[in-house]
C-alpha cells in the first residue's frame, strides 16, 4: 500500500511537467518510431533544447483521472509552476486545495492548512523521483538513460512516448506520453492500461514566468 503512494505523487509530478493548449483532435493519436540517440535524434534535439530553455513556466491545467471502477473520468483543475531550480509545483484548486511539490529533495504534499507530508527518504521513492526529473527538464541524455523513447511528428504537432527501462517503474507508471505543438506541451498521459490512466490538458502556458517571493514560499519547498 505504502509503496504505491510515491507512485501517485510522482504521477502527479509528471503531470505538472506537461504544459500547453488542448485540442485533442489535432494531436497525434499513435506512438511514433523509436527515437535512438546518435541515430535519429538530430531532428528532435532543437525541440528538446527549446522546451528546456523556456525557463520557469506557469500554466493552468485540467486533469482527467480514469479508474477501472468508474466509467467517467474524475476531473481536477489547478495551476502548475515549473522552475528549473525549484522544481515543479502543482496546485490543485478543485475539488480539494492541495499542492504537490517535486524537487531535488523528493516529493512533498502541502495541504491548505499549511501541514505538509513528505515522501520518506527511501531509495525506492527517490529512485522514482530521480527517474522523472529528466522528464520535467526535457533532458534528452538523461531521459535516454531511464526510458525508451518513441517520437512522431506531423508538421508542428509532435508526440513523445516514454517507457521506463526499469521493469518496476514501467509497472508503476506504464507509458508516459507527452504531446505538443511547436514549443508548447499540450497534453500528458500516464497510461497503465485503457482503464487506468491520467490525462493532463495544459492551458495557456506562460514561459519565462517569474515567481514572487510569496509564490515561492507558498508553492515550493
Amino acid at each position, binding site marked *: 500500500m505504502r509503496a504505491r503512494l510515491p507512485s501517485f505523487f510522482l504521477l502527479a509530478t509528471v503531470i505538472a511537467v506537461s504544459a500547453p493548449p488542448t485540442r485533442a483532435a489535432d494531436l497525434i493519436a499513435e506512438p511514433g518510431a523509436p527515437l535512438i540517440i546518435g541515430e535519429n535524434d538530430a531532428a528532435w534535439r532543437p525541440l528538446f533544447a527549446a522546451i528546456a530553455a523556456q525557463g520557469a513556466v506557469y500554466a493552468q491545467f485540467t486533469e482527467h483521472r480514469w479508474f*477501472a471502477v468508474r*466509467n467517467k473520468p474524475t476531473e481536477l483543475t489547478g495551476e502548475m509552476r515549473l522552475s528549473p531550480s525549484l522544481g515543479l509545483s502543482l496546485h490543485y484548486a478543485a475539488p480539494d486545495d492541495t499542492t504537490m511539490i517535486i524537487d531535488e529533495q523528493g516529493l512533498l504534499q502541502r495541504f491548505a492548512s499549511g501541514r505538509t507530508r513528505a515522501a520518506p527518504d527511501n531509495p525506492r521513492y527517490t529512485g522514482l523521483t530521480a527517474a522523472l526529473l529528466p522528464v520535467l527538464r526535457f533532458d534528452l541524455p538523461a531521459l535516454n538513460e531511464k526510458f525508451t523513447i518513441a517520437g512522431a511528428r506531423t508538421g508542428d504537432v509532435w508526440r513523445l512516448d516514454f517507457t521506463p527501462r526499469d521493469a518496476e517503474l514501467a509497472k508503476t507508471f506504464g507509458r508516459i506520453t507527452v504531446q505538443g505543438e511547436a514549443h508548447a506541451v499540450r497534453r500528458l498521459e500516464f497510461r497503465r492500461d485503457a482503464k487506468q490512466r491520467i490525462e493532463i490538458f495544459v492551458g495557456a502556458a506562460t514561459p519565462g514566468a517569474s515567481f514572487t517571493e510569496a509564490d515561492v514560499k507558498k508553492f515550493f519547498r
Partner: protein
Amino acid sequence: MQPPHQKRWARLLLAAGALVGLAWIALLDRPNKISTDVLDLLPRDERSPEIAMVRSLAGEQQARVALFALKFPAATPTPTRDAASAAFVAALSTSPAFAEVTRLDDTRSRDTLGREVFERRLDLLFPGWLAARRADYIRTAPSTPWPEWLADRTAAELHAFLAKPEALAFQELLPSDPLLLVPALTERVSGFASTGLAGGGSKDVTLIWTRTAASPLREEGQTPVFAAVATATAAAQKIAPEANLQWTAVSRLAAESRRRIEAEMSGLNILSLVAVLGVAALCVRHLLKALHLAPVIFGAMLGAWVVTTAVFDRVHVLVFVVGSLLGGVAIDYGFYLYLQPPRYPGEPYRARVGRLLRPLLASALTTILGFSLLLFSELPLIRQLGVFVSAGLLSALAAALLWFAQIEEPTLATRAFIRARVTSPGPRLRTGARALLLMCVAIACIGPWRLRWHDDIRQLDVPAVELRANDLAVRTLFGDETERTVYLTRGKTLAEARTSLERFITWHAEKFPGTALATLGLATPSPAAWATLPAEVPQLAGFEPALRAALTREGFDADSFAPFFATWNQWRARPAFPAYDAVTGGLLRNLHGPLALLASESPDSSWFATLAEHAPGAEPPAEFSTVSSSQLESLNGLFTRYRTSALHLSAIGLSLVGLSVFFIYGLRRGLRIFAVPAGSCLLAFGLLGFAGATLNLFHLLGAFLGVCLSHNYAIFSAENAAQGEEPPPSIRLSALCTAASFGVLALSHIPVVAALGLTVTIIVLCALALVELLPLAERASPENP
C-alpha cells in the same frame, strides 16, 4: 596519660570493628549488590503508570533496541556496499547477544502487517467505520432507511476520494475496498511515514535495526554486544575497508554512565578528602596530628557501607557517590573531641568526654533521628541514603570516641586566627551585624517564593554529551528527526488499553486540533465498536443491493466491485464473531522489528504507542492511562510526588529534631538553637531564589542534611555560651571542612550530586555566618557595654 585498660579496650574495639567491616566489604558480591540501573532508584511496587511503562519498555522493548548506520563513501560500488552490509548483518545475526537483526529497507515485516490488515479489514477496520457512520445516522435522523443511507454515503465518499492524490495509489485496491477502510487507515497513520518505520535511508547508508538479547542495563547486555559489534564491523570492513559504523544503544549510554559515575566516585572522594585535609592544614598547628581525624572518616565510611549493604538487597551506586560527602560531616565529631581544650592541665579523657557527651549525643542523635525518618520515603534512593548517613554518623561518633581514647594526647591546637573573637563589639560593629542579619531575614523571607521546582530523572546521570549527540545523529538517519511527541497508552488488557486509546484520541483532537496522530491502535477495533457488531450486521442485509445502486448512480461500474461483495457476503455469513482479544491480539502478536515498538500485549499489561506531529505539550489526564515520552524520560510528575513526600518527611524530621532540642535544652534555649538551622536553610533557599535557581528533590535532601549539620553548630555554640565560654573553634573548622567537601560535590558532573553539594555548602556557610553574627548583634550587657 591515658589509663592502659582504656587504651586496650578502645584498640580492641576499633580493631574488631575494622576487621569485621573490611571482611564484610571484601566478601561483598559487588556486581550484584551495587546497581547502576536507574530503575533501581524507583520503588519496585510503584503503581504509577509511567513506571509500569518505563519498566516494560526498559526491560522488554525500547531499551534493547540498538540502531546501526553503516556508512559508505559515495564512490563505493553498489555490489561492494551490499556485500559489506550483508556481512555485517550476518555477523550480528549469528551472535547470541542479539535477538533480532533487521535491515530497515527490508519491507517484509511491514508488508506482512499490511497484508494482514487488508485481509482482515472487515474484522479490524469495519467496526469502527460502521460505528462512526451509525453515530452520524442517529445524530442526523434522516428519513432514508439505514442500509440505503449507508450505501449512498459510501458511494459519495468513494467518489470524493478519487479526486485525492492518494486515490491513484489505491486504484487497484478499490474493487476490494470501496468502503475505503485501508486508504482511511493509511491516511490516519501517515505520521509513521516520516519515521524509520517507513524504511529506507540514503543510498550511501545501510540502516540496521536490532534488538539485543539481554537488558542493556546489565553487564550481559553490554560487553557481549560491544564484542559482537566489533566483530560485525570487522566483517564489513574486510569487504569495504572505507565503511564506517555509527551506532547507538542504551547499552552504550549505560556503560558510559557507569564508567563516569565510578570515575566521579573516586575523583570526588579524593578531592573531598584533600579539601578537608587542606582546611585542617590551614587551621591546625600540627598537620601530622590532624591525621588523627582520618580514622574517624574511615570509620564512618566503613560503618555506612557495611550497614547499608547489609540492610538492602541492591544499593544504587549513586548512594555511594552522594555518601562520599559523609567525610565532611563525620569529621565534625573528631573536631568537637579533638579541638576541645582541656579544662585544666591533665584533664582525663573520660572527664572531657563526660562534659562533651551531651552536645555530642544531642547533635548526633538528632541528626540520626532526622535521617532515619527518610527510611519511610517511597524512593529507595532516599531510604538508602537515610541509612547510609545515619549509620555513618553513628560509626563516626563511635570511631571518634574510641580513637581519641587510645592516643596519648587527644588535643589538637588550632591556629590563632581560627580562635579569634571580638569579645566586646563596639556600637558600629553591632549595628553592622544587625543590618546584616536584617538583610538575611529579608532574603530568607522573600527569596524562597522566587524558587522554581522541576525534577528530572536524567539528572541522576552523568550527561554524556558526545554519546547523546551520536544518538541523535543516528536516530535522525532512522527518520526520527521531526518534532513530535510519542504517547504510550496502557491497560491491564488489550481491550482496556484500546478503550483508553479511544478516549485519549478524542482528548488529543480537542487539545491539539489540526495535528496528525498515528497509532497502530487505529488498525484495531475499539471494544465498544466490536461489541455492537453482532447486533449491527443483521441490519445490513440490504446493504449490498443498496450499495450497487448507489455506486451506479455515482458513475461507478458496480460489477467491478465483485471482489468486495464476495468477501462481504462471506464475512456476514459466518456463524459467530470471535472474541475481541483473538481479533486484536492476533494482529499485535506478530509484530516484528521496529513495528514491535508500536504496540505490545502481555499477560500483565498491554500498550499502544501513538505518534503526534507536535512538540511536547499538555499531558493527558491520568484517567486516559496515557503518558508522553517526555514525561517518561523525565518522570517529572512522579519525582514531584516523591519530592512532596520527601518534603513531608523532612518537615516531620525537623519537627522531631526541634522537639528533641526543646526537650533537652528547654523552650527558650531550644528556640535559640533551632533558629540557626531553620534560618540558615531559609536564607540558603532565599539566595538560590534570588539567583533564579530551579531546584529539585536533591536540593531538598541537601537542605535536610545542611539543617542537621548547622544544628550541631548551634548546639555547641549554645553549650559553650551556657558555660560562659566562647563558641569552640571546632565550629568554624567543622563548617569550613563541610563547606570544602560539599563544595567539591557541587563541582560534580552529576546534576543531582552538584545540587546536593551546593545546597549543603550554602546552608553551612549561612549557619556559620549566623553563629558568628548573632553574638555580635546582641544587646550589650551592663557589665560589658
